[in-house]
Structure formats: structure tokens, C-alpha cells
């Protein structure tokens, strides 16, 4: 499952769980909270009503005291003559009451009632009619008349208006003037009455909008409702019933009470003597509220859940999934296509770090890949594409052209005289030369690239072989032009290690449309054409031609045949005896390889040895020669024939490529031959190869194996250079021996070589000796050992054994 649906699927249950965890307890908490709130609300409302009432009572009390002390009232009461009181003072007092009522509009009546209950002055708000002047039967009057207090406050129904009013009655005292001097006793003169409606509470009660389904009721001691607010269906009789049946509380208490088949939470309190206040909260309203709250919180939680889930998802998407996808794409881009790193993040979070790590890893991998690619596809020496890349590119052209022959041409370049440079100046020099050649080739083709960009691809196939692939052309002239240019740039001398080298190149050209059915064909044909060029005297180019191809095919065949020959034991060793010039005895023999190809006859060594060296077959051939020689000597020993050391030729390729010392020791061990019966002949080039080769030779020599320097005089080594080298013998090249017949110069050189060699304590071997004159001269100049047809041609092993057996007497010349 992908991360996105996984997150989506996991967010929802988590949030749902949260909702369940949050909503249910909060619902329960709310239930409790609502109940608490209702209780608080009820007690608040009650105390609000109570406070307001108390405030009103206090105000009334204070006002009544103030009014009772009015000078006009005093004067009025002091005037005992009723007629005067009424005619002179009544209206003035009424005016004063009127001004009180103007100041305190909440009073609906201010009146003055005499002790006998006669209401003398009465001022009603809005000039309400006063039905009766006789107040003695009125509740408040009875109350104040028997009260020990100075004032009483009672709720009662106003007989004039049939409305509930709050009546304050205050005793008005007056000091008796006559008695003033002896006592402070005051005489009760009248009652001051102040009436107020319940409007002040009514406002609070009716403004209480929460009581829609409940009720609020103010009742007197008999349960008569004074003020009702709330459910209109509630009858005053049922409210009275509530009052009469409910236990009385001076302290607020909440009771569950059923009223007209509805359940209420009822709070009741006596506000002051004779005035009770009740609040009933409909239970159904509570449930309704809870339900509403529940729905609201569920809906809002759900909305919050949706929003937060969306936000969370969006955030995860933005912060995690999207970057991960981008990171993935970027990594893919980099890893698979090798493209640039495209993931950039502004935030410095873990993803950023991860991206950086992946980027670094990717870059590292890319570098490694490049390195691997370089190792695999780039020639380490010249930094040119190697054979593999070249082959791939070539194949690519063939593949791309949909199995049609592509428009390409191939130039196969082989350096002329490189092998000699390598042999004589060592590989280091050779390598430098190759690098220089590569540089010139690149340079030359870069100039061509200005004309036809990207259409010339150079590669080094190995050794001194280079190729140039021309794409998009069938034109012989174009290829010819490039070839000429290459020849020209390579014809100028190279300066390497302060030495001047002159080399050339042979170039074979194959045009795909003409001769390249396949990539392999094209390469082979270019190669063949190169051989043709070589044959044509080097430093030239040739287009592939069938006849030339046939010729070079021979060399190829020889290579293959030789491989087979080594396998099939088609080779054999011949031994040419070496004769001591003084004693005439055979002191050794040189093992020479012979190849008898079935159906072809003998193939001379100077034909197949270079091919073997070039192809690397020399390694296995060399091993075979050493082992075969060892076996032969051992065989001779077993036959009881007195044996002489056998000299085998070791090519410089062998010295370069393998541990010759081990190879030789292995062969000796395998055959059980003693080391003094095996000797090694090397060429001058082996010595020139450098320290490694010399060290190998020293090791071989120290194992008791003699070493001879073959073909001396053909190379560049001078005699003085031989000093200190691990060499026991010096073999003068047969060309010098041949030259002995041509004049004195030849004789002088040979005699000088012999003399010098002796000076270096080296034995001198002369090979290729064919005549008595030659032998005599060599003997005269003390050449130590003579090898050649004068004494014997190379012999088969059994011929040698016969020779040993016959004890052939050497043709000793006088």
C-alpha cells in the first residue's frame, strides 16, 4: 500500500478515536456542568431578585424616613384643627407628596393615614382613584398598628387597583412641645404609607429569557402568585399547590418537582417575611439543551476532524509524500538516467538531510560509475575510448540503422616501428610515445571536427593500434583525407625524454557500405587493409581489397594454427650442438622449435615466432619449449647418455609478462632436472626492458642457470653496457659471422667483440658458422664455442642420442 492511502486510512480512525475520547467525556461533563449552571442560574436569579427587592426595601425605608421628617408634614400633623389642616395645608402636603413621587417614580402611592385609619392625604400615581378613605381594615394598617417596629413592609393586593403592591407603613412620631423640656418621648401621630408596584422585580423576571419552558413565580405567604413569568400553561392554582406542598426553605434548595405532568428543577426561597420566590427549570429543556449541545459538538468535532484531517493530509502530502516522490524521481533521474540532481528543499528538515545524503550517495555512485565506465571504456594510458567502447559504438551504429548498413567508415591505424622503440627503449618510452601519438591524433581530428563536428571518433584498440570511426559518410575521399592528415601529423618526429623518434603509421580503411556487412566484418577488413598498407611499405594507407585480404588472412591463420599446434603437440624441438673450439667436444646444444603443420609442411620459426610474440602465444609456447627441453635431457640421462646443458630461447615478452624464474624452477621441479643442465638465451631487448627484467634474470642466474645474450650486435647495446649484467655468455649474431668473408672490417669487429667479451669474463659463442675459414678465424681469435652447419644442423632428439652414442669425432680443422 502506498504511503498516501496508508496515512489517510490511519488519520481517520485516530481522529475518530479522538472525537469519541473528547466528545463523550465532554458530553458527560457538560451534563454535569449544565446541572451546575442551572443551579447557579437559579440561585443567581433568586439572589438577583432578592438583592433588587432588598435594595428597593432599603430605598423605601430610607425614603419613608426622609419623607416622614418633612417640615410640611410636621407642620401638618402639628396642626390639630382639622379644618385648617385641610383648607390650608392639605394641598401643600399633597404637592409635597407629588414632588416626592416625581423624584421617585417607582412609588405608586404616598399617603398619610391617621391613627384611626383615616387616610387624610393620599397621592396616587396617574391620579388613580382612591376607593376608600378608611384604611383601618387594610392589612398593612393592621400590621403597623400592632407592630413594635417603626415601619412594616408587606406585599398585598391594593384594594384600589386590585394589583399586587409592596406597602411600606411608617409610624410618624412628633415630639410633644410641652413635654419636650422634660422628656424626649415622642408621640405617634400618623402613618406614612408608601406603595410600590412589583415592576422593579417584574423587569428582572420578564427579561429572563432563559425561562421559556420553566417558570418564575413570586408568591405571598398564602401561595398567591404575585408575579409569574414563563410557561403560560401553568395555572396559578398549580403554582399555589407547588407552594403549599413544597417544604419551606429559608436557604435555597433545589428540588425535583412535577407540576401539571411536567418535571421541573425547582428552587425556592423566602425573600423576606411573607414573600417567596420560586424558579422552575423545565427538565425537558435541560435535555433539549444537552441534545443540542451534543449535536453541535458532534457536528463541530466532525468539521474540525474533516478540516484537521484535510490539513494533516495536505501537510503530510506537502511536507512528506510530495518531497519523497520528488526525491524518488530525482534519485531515479540521477541513478537511472544519470541526469542532474533536481530535488531542492528550502526547509532544513530530516528530508532535507536525507535528500542530501541520497544526493551525496548518488554523486558518489555516479563518480564511481564514471570511474568504472572509464576503467571499462577508457584507455587508461591515452584516455581515448578503448576497444570495448569502440566496439559498442560500432555495434550501436549497426543496431541503430535497423540492420541496414550504416553510413560509416573505419580507419585502422597501426604505428610503424613502434615495436622497435618499445624493444629498444623500454615500455616507458613506448607508453610516452603512445600518449604523444594519441594527443596528435586528437588534435588533428579536433581540427577536422570544426568542419564536421562529432563525426570523428578515435579509439585505442590496444598496443599501437588505433581506430578512427567516421560517421555519416560513405565517401572514400573524406576517409582518405583523414588518413592523409593522420599520416602527416604522425610523420613529424616525437621528442620523448630528450630523444627524437621518427615513426610512421599504416592505415587501413574500410567503408561500411562497401565492405562492412557487420561490425566484425568492418573491423576485420580495416585491420586487413592496415596489413596491406604495412605490406606496401608502411607509412601509407590502403582501402580494403579482397586480394590483399587473402594475403593477410595467412597471418591470421598462422596464429590460429599455432594455437592449435601447441595444443595438438604439432611442435617439436630440434637441438643444434655447440662445440668447444679448443677441444672440439660438444659442450651444449640450443633447443630450436620446429612446427610441422599437417598438409603444409615445415613452417620456419621466423614466420611463426613473431606472430606468437605478437599474439601472446609465446607464453604457452615458451613454457612448452622449456618443459619439453627438460624432459628430453632427463630422457637422455635415463638412457645413460652423457648429457650437456640445453639452451632455450626466452622472449622478452615472456620476461615481461610472467615470472620466468618460477616458470623455469617449476619445469625443473616437474622433471627433476638439475639447474646446470638448463641454460637460457635472451635478446638484447630483454635487457633494455628495465630493472624488472634484470632482477628476474639475476634471480634465474642465481638459481644456477646460465644466461646467454643472443643475437649480440643487432641491437643498440654496446659492450660496455653489458658490464654487471647477469650474463654468462655472449652470442655473436650470425650476420657478423657472414660478414667475416666480405672483408677486413668484419674480421676486426668480430675480433674486437671477442676481445672485449673476454675482458668482461664472458664466454663468446659464434653461431651460424658454416665454413672452415670462419671456424679457423674464430678459433684463432679464441671464440669459445662454435654453433652452426659447419659442425651440425639442428638434430632430432634421437639423432643427438645417436651422435652421443657414436661419439662422433669432431671435424677438427687444422
Amino acid at each position, binding site marked *: 500500500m502506498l504511503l498516501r492511502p496508508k496515512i489517510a486510512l490511519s488519520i481517520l480512525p485516530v481522529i475518530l478515536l479522538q472525537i469519541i475520547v473528547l466528545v463523550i467525556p465532554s458530553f458527560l461533563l457538560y451534563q454535569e456542568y449544565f446541572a451546575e449552571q442551572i443551579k447557579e442560574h437559579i440561585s443567581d436569579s433568586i439572589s438577583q431578585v432578592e438583592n433588587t427587592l432588598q435594595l428597593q426595601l432599603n430605598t423605601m425605608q430610607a425614603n419613608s424616613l426622609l419623607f416622614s421628617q418633612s*417640615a*410640611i408634614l410636621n*407642620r401638618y400633623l402639628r*396642626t390639630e*384643627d*382639622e*379644618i*385648617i*389642616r*385641610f*383648607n*390650608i*395645608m*392639605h*394641598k*401643600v402636603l*399633597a*404637592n409635597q407628596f407629588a414632588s416626592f413621587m416625581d423624584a421617585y417614580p417607582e412609588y405608586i402611592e404616598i399617603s398619610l393615614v391617621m391613627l384611626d385609619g383615616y387616610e*387624610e*392625604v*393620599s*397621592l396616587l400615581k*396617574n*391620579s388613580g*382613584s*382612591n376607593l376608600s*378613605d378608611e384604611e383601618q381594615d387594610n392589612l398593612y394598617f393592621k400590621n403597623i398598628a400592632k407592630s413594635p417596629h417603626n415601619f412594616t413592609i408587606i406585599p398585598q393586593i391594593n384594594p384600589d387597583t386590585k394589583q399586587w403592591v409592596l406597602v411600606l407603613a411608617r409610624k410618624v412620631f412628633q415630639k410633644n*412641645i*410641652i*413635654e419636650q*423640656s422634660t422628656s424626649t418621648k415622642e408621640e405617634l401621630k400618623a402613618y406614612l404609607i408608601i406603595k410600590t408596584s412589583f415592576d422593579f422585580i417584574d423587569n428582572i423576571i420578564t427579561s429572563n429569557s432563559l425561562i421559556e419552558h420553566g417558570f418564575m413565580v413570586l408568591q405571598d405567604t398564602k401561595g398567591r402568585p404575585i408575579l409569574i413569568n414563563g410557561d403560560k400553561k401553568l395555572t396559578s392554582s398549580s403554582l399555589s399547590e407547588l407552594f403549599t406542598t413544597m417544604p419551606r426553605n429559608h436557604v435555597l434548595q433545589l428540588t425535583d418537582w412535577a407540576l401539571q405532568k411536567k418535571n421541573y428543577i425547582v428552587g425556592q426561597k423566602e425573600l423576606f417575611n411573607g414573600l417567596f420566590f420560586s424558579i422552575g427549570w423545565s427538565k425537558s429543556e435541560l435535555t433539549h439543551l444537552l441534545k443540542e449541545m451534543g449535536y453541535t459538538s458532534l457536528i463541530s468535532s466532525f468539521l474540525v476532524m474533516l478540516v484537521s484531517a484535510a490539513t494533516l493530509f495536505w501537510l503530510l502530502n506537502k511536507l512528506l509524500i510530495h518531497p519523497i516522490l520528488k526525491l524518488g524521481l530525482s534519485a531515479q533521474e540521477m541513478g537511472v538516467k544519470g541526469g542532474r540532481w533536481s530535488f531542492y528543499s528550502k526547509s532544513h528538515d530530516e528530508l532535507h538531510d536525507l535528500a542530501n545524503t541520497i544526493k551525496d550517495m548518488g554523486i558518489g555512485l555516479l563518480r564511481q560509475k564514471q570511474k568504472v565506465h572509464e576503467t571499462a571504456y577508457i584507455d587508461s594510458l591515452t584516455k581515448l575510448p578503448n576497444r570495448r567502447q569502440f566496439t559498442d559504438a560500432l555495434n550501436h551504429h549497426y543496431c541503430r540503422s535497423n540492420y541496414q548498413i550504416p553510413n560509416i567508415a573505419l580507419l585502422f591505424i597501426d604505428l610503424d616501428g613502434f615495436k622497435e622503440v618499445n624493444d629498444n627503449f623500454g615500455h616507458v618510452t613506448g607508453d610516452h610515445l603512445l600518449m604523444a601519438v594519441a594527443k596528435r591524433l586528437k588534435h588533428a581530428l579536433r581540427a577536422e571536427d570544426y568542419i564536421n563536428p562529432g563525426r570523428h571518433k578515435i579509439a585505442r584498440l590496444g598496443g599501437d593500434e588505433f581506430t578512427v570511426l567516421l560517421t555519416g559518410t560513405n565517401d572514400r575521399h573524406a576517409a582518405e583525407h583523414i588518413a592523409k592528415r593522420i599520416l602527416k601529423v604522425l610523420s613529424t618526429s616525437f621528442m620523448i625524454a630528450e630523444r627524437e623518434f621518427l615513426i610512421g603509421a599504416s592505415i587501413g580503411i574500410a567503408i561500411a557500405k562497401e565492405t562492412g556487412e557487420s561490425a566484425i566484418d568492418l573491423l576485420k577488413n580495416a585491420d586487413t587493409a592496415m596489413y596491406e598498407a604495412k605490406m606496401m611499405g608502411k607509412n601509407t594507407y590502403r582501402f580494403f581489397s579482397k586480394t590483399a585480404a587473402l594475403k593477410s588472412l595467412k597471418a591470421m591463420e598462422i596464429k590460429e594454427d599455432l594455437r592449435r599446434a601447441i595444443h595438438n603437440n604439432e611442435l617439436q624441438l630440434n637441438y643444434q650442438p655447440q662445440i668447444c673450439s679448443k677441444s672440439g667436444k660438444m659442450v651444449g646444444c640450443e633447443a630450436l622449435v620446429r612446427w610441422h603443420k599437417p598438409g603444409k609442411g615445415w613452417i620456419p620459426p621466423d614466420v611463426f615466432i613473431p606472430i606468437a610474440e605478437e599474439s601472446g602465444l609465446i607464453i604457452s609456447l615458451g613454457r612448452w619449449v622449456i618443459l619439453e627441453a627438460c624432459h628430453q635431457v632427463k630422457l637422455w640421462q635415463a638412457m645413460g647418455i652423457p648429457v650437456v646443458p640445453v639452451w632455450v630461447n626466452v622472449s622478452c615478452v615472456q620476461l615481461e609478462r610472467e615470472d620466468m624464474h618460477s616458470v623455469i624452477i617449476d619445469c625443473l621441479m616437474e622433471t627433476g632436472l638439475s639447474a646446470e643442465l638448463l641454460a637460457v638465451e635472451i635478446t638484447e631487448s630483454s635487457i633494455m626492458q628495465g630493472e624488472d627484467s634484470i632482477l628476474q634474470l639475476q634471480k634465474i642466474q642465481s638459481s644456477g642457470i646460465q644466461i646467454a645474450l643472443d643475437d649480440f650486435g643487432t641491437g643498440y647495446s654496446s659492450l660496455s653496457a653489458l658490464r654487471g649484467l647477469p650474463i654468462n655468455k655472449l652470442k655473436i649474431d650470425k650476420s657478423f659471422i657472414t660478414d667475416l668473408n666480405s672483408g677486413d672490417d668484419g674480421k676486426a669487429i668480430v675480433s674486437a667483440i671477442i676481445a672485449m667479451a673476454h675482458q668482461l669474463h664472458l664466454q663468446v659463442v659464434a653461431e651460424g658458422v658454416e665454413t672452415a675459414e670462419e671456424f679457423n678465424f674464430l678459433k684463432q681469435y679464441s671464440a669459445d664455442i662454435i654453433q652452426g652447419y659447419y659442425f651440425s644442423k639442428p638434430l632430432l632428439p634421437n639423432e643427438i642420442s645417436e651422435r652421443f652414442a657414436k661419439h662422433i669425432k669432431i671435424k677438427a680443422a687444422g
Partner: protein
Amino acid sequence: MHKVIPAPSTELIKYLILSTILFTSLLLSSIFCLAAAPSQQTEEITFLTWGDYINPELVTQFEAEYNAKVNFVYFESDNGRDEILINTNAFGYDILLVDSTNLISYKKLGWINDFDPQAAPNINYAQLPELSNLDKEAQFCTPYAWGTTGIAYRKDLVPEPITSWKQVFSPAPELQGKILMSSMSTEVVGMALKSLGYSMASSNSQELEQARQLLLAQAPSVAGYSPIASDTKTAKLVTGQASVTLTYSGDALMLHALEPQVEYLVPKEGGAVWADFICLSAQAGNVKLAHHFIDFINRPKQAADNALYLFNATPNSEAEKLLPSEFLNNSIIYPDEALIAQSETYQLLSPRTIKKHNSIMRELKELTK
């Protein structure tokens, strides 16, 4: 604090001693003040009276003659005066103008004293004639003027000449909002009772209720229940903002002088006959000057001038001799005896009647608020 009827006890003696000491000290301090003051010190008296109820020339003459200053404090209605006196107990006033009804109450409340006829011999000229049921026995003070309460109206602004109270209490539509009434319940309720043919002092609750109904029905047509003697009322009738007003004969004649279209009459049902008195305040600061003043205005010449100014009948018999015949023959100033007999003077009412009056007045005022 003066108790009108002192209870006989030792307290009284103590009180008397105390008040004597107080009085003596007051007297001494005033003598001291007088002695300390320069000889030409202007003496002052304060007169509590109706506005524009004395000829100003008379005052000027008095002030000149006695090198004195007369301060006036005006009240707008009898109730206004009552309130002032209740609150001050008559302190700060030297002479008071009092109507016939309240004289005895004021006396009982100890607010007024009798003038000394020795100190002001001219007051002997002032004798009221027989006026309806006016109680001559209860006269402690010097009569000042007398007249009637009736109707003043603009004859150019009423559809037909007014002859009856009924035209006022059940007014023609043209009079809607053009009627001015009094602020005094005795006048408003009293005249309503009169128009119904009852006594204006009636205490019969049925009669009073009828009067109430009549007044409530009239109320929408009434422009206001304000004191008769107010300047605005005067102005309103003169400018024509009001067409009919309940007023006094003297005031009506003053209005007639300003606007000839103003007519006054005592309706056929009869009106009220009243008399005003000048009293010596019980708390008078300058009793001597007060006596000089009452003596001065009762000089026949001055009394006659004042009557001419006030357009009121004068109780001064010597002054009457000096008055022109057209004044004496003016039926408004001197209504014929039959009309006087038809009319009543104001009486003290019973507490319940007063309560009824007061509640009717409050009701009317609420209606016209």
C-alpha cells in the same frame, strides 16, 4: 415657634419666660442696631401679595413720605401663599394680603396679628358692605378690596355672547382649546357646582361627582388650569389665543382696558363674591412702618386712587365719596344686589370635600398634561 392654643401648665410659664428673654434680646439688638444706624436709615417692610395688586404710585408716595422701602413678594394663588407661609411661618413678611376664607385659619395658625387702630386710624374707614354670606365677625384684618369671580371672554371670538356657566363647562366646538380655567379647586369645582345649580361649598358626594363628570367632559377643551392672576393668561386673552377665561372682576376690567373686546360677566347662575384683606404678619419685623403703610393706603385719597387703578370696589367709605360716579355705577365693579345674592363667598370646606376637590383637580391636570 408659637403655639396658637397653649396648654395651661408650668411648661407654658417656662416657655413664656424663654420667649420673653428671646424677645427682649431681639428688641435690644434692634434698638442697638437702630442706634448704631444713621438717622436717615431707610426702613423696610415686606408685603406678600398678588402681583400688580396695588397702584405703584401709591407705593412711591409712601416710600417718599416715610423714607421707606416696600419690598414685594408675589404669590400666584391662595395655595401658593399658604405654602410660603407654612414653610416660613410668616417670618420675613410684615404685611400679608389674605382672602376672606383663610383669615380665621391664619389667625389660628398664629401667622397674623391685628393692627392697632390707634397706630393707624385710617383703617377705621375700611368697612365691607354686606356681601352674600361673608362672615363679618371673622374679620381680623383691614379690608382692601372686593369683587366677583366670573367669566371674561372675547366677544369677537365667541359664537354668541356668554351668559351662563354652561357655555363654559359644555363649550361650543369653536371654544375647543380656547378656555382657560383656574388652578384653584374651590374656583374650578365651585363654579362647576354653580353651573349645576348647587352650592359651590357643597359636600354632597353625588353633587361633587356630577361636578367631576362635568369637568372631565370639559377638560379636553381646556387650554390650562393655571393661576388666574398670571401674566400669560392675561396675554393669551388679549392676543386671542384664548377666548374665554375664568377670572376676577378687577382683572377683567384691566384686560378690557388693554383690549376693548374683552367682556366680563357674572353668569346668571351666579359667581363668587370675594374680599381681600391686609393683615399684619405675626412675625412683622417693622410693625411701626407696617402701621404707617396700612394707614397710608387707607387715606381716602390714596384708597380712591388705588380703587381706580385696580378696578375693584373699595371698602373705604371715605374714599368712595371721592370716586367718580361712572366708577361707582359700573355694574361690574358694583354688581347689583340680586346678582350678589345669587353668588356665594368662599367657605372653609370639610376635609373630605377638600380631598375630593383635590383629587378632581389632579385628575384634570393629568388629563391636560
